[in-house]
């Protein structure tokens, strides 16, 4: 019978430290396979193809069932870092299944998986590993030993939700319409073919789809970071071409907060974003005091703190500063709940509902059904190279 430990507790209660302790215990033996919270910590970083990543971990002596590879043979020469977050976690599990490691430690990574893959991952590690230590913000699977971490008496980076709600400025977002959207990556993988959808303001949309379907790609297209093969987009009655004219309507909080900063400190980040807005005279401005108040409400002691020195969960929270600032009428949050404890997820759901009520359009990607159920939303499905609204 294996040892299955589930480290529970709120953010900043020392869960990651407890996980590291477990890994150090195993370090004297044959080590622990580690899957960190984001892609960079899930994969080895030593390889540049999926095939090499598998080869690195493969051990012929390993005798356990193989966890399925999340990509087909045609993708074996693809760069593993170019896979979606969920696919990278599944690839890491495949590598574990091929390796000689007996122990596995997972830091919130399974939160990036869709329900089917998540169930499959739990079932697999429970079957194949001698010991599993897991940090996860959702309910523990049956039969696992729960190791609760007590919250510190004075919570760090606490979010002042009432204050945040106070700071929401009403905004009249325009409808966003997309038609004839075609996009494929250079490697030939087609993501959208003649996709169309119309999104109304004052609503929340859950962008849904299996891992690797193209949810994050859609966000990147909407902010102009990727260029579609062809597409017609309108914002209200105006043509919207972010890939040509720049993004003037959507604020994006990325899955990994470290992929969205425009500076080393929050002050630098916000200042650069505000300065960039001068290219769009019609976009609303925000004053420094408001930003300061927002950041403080999100738990930042100072705007001048070096972002990369903060804990990951705190960085994730601060990555919401710009979307919550109310500069853009549409807000897009990619996996906002990854690494966030239950209380934060509940409050975030309420806050997003409030944003919709105040006129914003909200899009979010999440694999957290419990979170999604807490806010009224429509589902925008990305599947079969199309967009479908239900």
């Amino acid at each position, binding site marked *: 019978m294996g040892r299955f430990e589930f480290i529970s507790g709120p953010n900043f209660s020392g869960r990651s430290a407890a996980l590291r302790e477990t890994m150090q215990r195993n370090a004297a033996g044959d080590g622990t396979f580690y899957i960190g919270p984001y892609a960079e910590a899930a994969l080895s970083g030593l390889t540049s193809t999926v095939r090499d990543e598998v080869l690195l971990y493969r051990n012929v002596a390993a005798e356990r069932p193989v966890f399925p590879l999340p990509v087909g043979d045609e993708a074996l020469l693809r760069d593993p*870092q170019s896979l979606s977050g969920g696919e990278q976690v599944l690839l890491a599990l495949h590598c574990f299944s091929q390796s000689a490691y007996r122990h596995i430690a997972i830091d919130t990574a399974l939160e990036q998986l869709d329900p089917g893959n998540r169930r499959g991952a739990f079932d697999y590690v429970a079957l194949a590993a001698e010991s599993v230590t897991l940090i996860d913000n959702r309910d523990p699977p049956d039969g696992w030993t729960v190791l609760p971490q007590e919250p510190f008496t004075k919570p760090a980076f606490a979010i002042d939700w009432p204050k945040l709600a106070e700071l929401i400025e009403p905004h009249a977002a325009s409808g966003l319409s997309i038609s004839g959207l075609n996009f494929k990556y250079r490697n030939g993988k087609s993501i959208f073919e003649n996709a169309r959808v119309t999104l109304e303001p004052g609503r929340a949309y859950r962008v849904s789809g299996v891992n690797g379907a193209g949810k994050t790609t859609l966000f990147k297209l909407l902010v102009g970071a990727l260029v579609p093969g062809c597409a017609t987009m309108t914002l209200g009655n105006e043509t919207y071409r972010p890939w040509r004219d720049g993004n003037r309507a959507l604020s994006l909080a990325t899955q990994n907060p470290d992929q969205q900063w425009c500076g080393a400190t929050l002050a630098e980040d916000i200042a650069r974003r505000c300065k960039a807005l001068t290219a769009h005279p019609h976009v609303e401005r925000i004053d420094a005091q408001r930003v300061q108040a927002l950041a403080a409400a999100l738990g930042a002691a100072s705007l001048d703190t070096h972002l990369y020195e903060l804990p990951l969960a705190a960085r994730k929270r601060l990555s919401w500063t710009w979307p919550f600032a109310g500069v853009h009428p549409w807000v897009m949050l990619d996996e906002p709940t990854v690494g966030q404890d239950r209380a934060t997820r509940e409050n975030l759901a309420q806050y997003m509902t409030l944003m919709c009520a105040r006129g914003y359009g909200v899009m979010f990607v999440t694999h957290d059904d419990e979170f999604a159920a807490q806010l009224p939303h429509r589902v925008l499905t990305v599947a079969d190279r199309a967009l479908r609204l239900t």
Partner: protein
Amino acid sequence: MTPNGAAVFAIVTLAAAVAANLRGLGTLCFIVAAFAATEVRGPALTALRRSILIMLPLAAFMLAVWVGIVGRSPAEIAARVDGSRLSAFAYAATVSLRLFIIIFVVQAALMCFHNESPFTAIRALTLPLPVKRLVVLTLSLIATLRHAVDRSHTALVSSGVITRRLSLRNVMHGWVLIQSVWLTAITTVLGRVRDKWPAENTLVLLEPALRPIVRPPGTADVIWGAAALTGLAFVIFERVSGAA
């Protein structure tokens, strides 16, 4: 062609390019073009385009400075003779062509194995394990930087700090991209070094993964090795006869 054969071809050609004069470089261009057309084929056009793009700014600068402003070659200046713009042009062409060949050969040699994974090619190289490890870590660092560029670019474009297209804004704020790339890359590397690698002893896994596989040299290795050596011999002959 085997990785060892490609490595030998690249190293000998690079050595020849460093030592060659304009005529020698012309000969090397011919050899390298034949190599690319035979061993690399289609993807060689990408290498050609990249090499030209990298070489062009240097060529433009050299032409402007040496032909346009100075009007003499460095050798003529050292010899304290009047000199001519033609020799200045020859000097600029030599330096630019040398850079072009170096960039192109390295890419062409790597592209011979574009259907293989890097580990497969590195395993087949006759190198000591520590050197192979160094190659893997170098490639890992390059990949990390490439991803950092991609992610930082996305962040800065979506926030409007830079634009996707060529713009004055990009010239003004290009340094923000460099700062952002640097911070992203450092965070990524630190994450691996602090958590993933010590927990798993990941670097130890490189030893079995890079265990050598023997690939005996084929006809292509012999032919291109001989061609590169011939090029080198020609370059040396040119230098010796030129000096005489």
